[in-house]
């Protein structure tokens, strides 16, 4: 049942002369939650950003290797990075709704950026659908024209998720989406992720082992041999297996260290 959504082969990523990740091979299954764990600086964010071609937006940054989404090479010459990003949405660590826009306009921003018509009722439908999908509709339906930045941190993060899924992407990338949130908001986002995995392939970076165990079906452990060396993928497998009996000793020590 699990065809691979994303296939990554021999991936290297660089910041100018500095290699941040080295030779990653990975299959990310469709309609499941895949968690990336590992110590800070091992390249989790960098790797995540290569998946929707955001890495290349940084000056001097480049990528080698191949990433395929349902067989289509994301780094093919003819492909516009904007098209890739429409299909692979992203949620950032700090909730960042556009401050000049209302809640409604935030949800529709992706469509507007891509000149997709969303006027009048069609727009209303998309707004309601996206906000319902992000479990936010009931909380904001009476103030859709109020600024998005007036919401609480957890609501803002769900607004950012609604903004990303309004474009109906196949994949959602999340880089520590709960690390700036309180436990209750974190719980709300985790519940949401579990619902969203019915319809989307989700890749999440997290520092929280319990979170990875709670919400993910697959876990990938990244590590780096020394500071200044590139990060690499140590192993990847079913979350349960990874947490109960990992293959590699360093995975075991990282996971158990984190559990204390």
């Amino acid at each position: 049942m699990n065809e691979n959504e994303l296939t990554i082969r021999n991936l290297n990523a660089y910041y100018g002369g500095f290699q941040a990740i080295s030779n990653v091979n990975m299959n990310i299954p469709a309609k499941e939650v895949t968690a990336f764990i590992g110590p800070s600086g091992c390249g989790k964010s960098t790797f995540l950003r290569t998946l929707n071609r955001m890495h290349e937006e940084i000056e001097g940054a480049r990528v080698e290797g191949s990433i395929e989404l349902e067989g289509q090479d994301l780094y093919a010459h003819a492909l516009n990075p904007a098209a890739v990003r429409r299909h692979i949405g992203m949620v950032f660590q700090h909730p960042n709704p556009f401050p000049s826009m209302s809640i409604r306009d935030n949800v529709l921003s992706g469509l507007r950026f891509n000149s997709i018509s969303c006027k009048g009722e069609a727009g209303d439908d998309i707004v309601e659908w996206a906000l319902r999908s992000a479990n936010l509709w009931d909380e904001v339906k009476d103030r859709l024209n109020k600024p998005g930045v007036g919401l609480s941190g957890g609501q803002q993060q769900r607004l950012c998720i609604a903004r990303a899924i309004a474009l109906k992407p196949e994949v959602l990338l999340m880089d520590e989406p709960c690390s700036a949130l309180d436990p209750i908001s974190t719980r709300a986002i985790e519940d949401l992720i579990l619902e969203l995995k019915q319809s989307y392939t989700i890749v999440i970076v997290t520092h929280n082992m319990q979170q990875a165990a709670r919400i993910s079906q697959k876990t990938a452990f990244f590590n780096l041999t020394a500071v200044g060396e590139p990060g690499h993928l140590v192993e990847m497998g079913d979350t349960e297996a990874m947490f109960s009996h990992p293959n590699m000793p360093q995975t075991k020590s990282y996971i158990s260290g984190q559990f204390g």
Partner: protein
Amino acid sequence: MSLLTLNSSATKAREGKHWFARTPHEMPETEETGKTVATIESLSRRRKLRSLLMNCVVVVSACVVVIPVISIFWTALTRGIAQLSPYFLTHNMRGIVGGTYPYGGIFHAISGTVEITGVTMLICAPLGIFAAIYINEYARRSRLSRLVVSAVNIMSGIPSILAGLFAYALFSLLSGVGTINGFVGVVALAVLALPTVIKTSLEAVSRVPDTLRESALALGASRSVMIRKVVLRTALPGLVSAVILAIARIIGETAPLMIAAGIVDNTNFNLFSGRMMTLPAYIYNEYSQGLATCPTAHVASLMPCDPQIRIERAWAAALVLILLVAVFNAVGHWVARRSMAGSRHS
């Protein structure tokens, strides 16, 4: 008020009565408690003295800042209000002789100031904002943007009289020696306004967090869409203040306009031909001429004459200038507020 309360608590401290030592009914002090209270007290007295001193400094410096501002407004208001009338605002100085009635007005100076300042900003606002966008969004660390930034820094130090001379010299070369008109004034003011616009809008644009740019790109926005729909929209209040600041910078300029646009009595709407009066030039011109001549008392009884009229006109014009700046400010803030999300519908 705060000074008073501080003072009284300081006095109490000097009397050796601390909040933790004082009781509604004074307790007799034992030898030991008296000692600890004394050491703590000396410490605390120093602290209170320092806080009192700081308070004085803050209050005094606040006064130093506020008093001149209030005093300027007050003087302009009280001295300018006498001559301010619909007649004064709608007439120019054509055919006004000495101090005899009718006293003339400033319509030509208002229209000149509005036209010259407006056209200057029509040129400088887009130019300056484009420059800021280029520097911040397209060429953050390029040699060209470093060059533009240092050019801006040098330009913002140019004395305004030099800007006037520059514009005058430029047009003497381009369209004949001695060309003086509104547009020469526009060029002089543009030299002064452009660095302000660039600097302030660069600040506004660079305050837009990078995470917003990233979010826009991650939603499939192209670079130009990201700049238009996110960067410019988010920076808009800052960009409006950039324009307001630049207007405030140039609207009171006198010397460059006297050189480049000249001084004239009649109303001239044509930027490209003939001298054009402006409010600051009007104020200077009136004030510098001092007392007006009046006919002998016998004739004056037939026709009113005010020897102080030039000074009064200068103050009335100054009041109008201040009000004009206030109006620009209000309009700017209104535009900025209106453009923010949420306030449109609710």
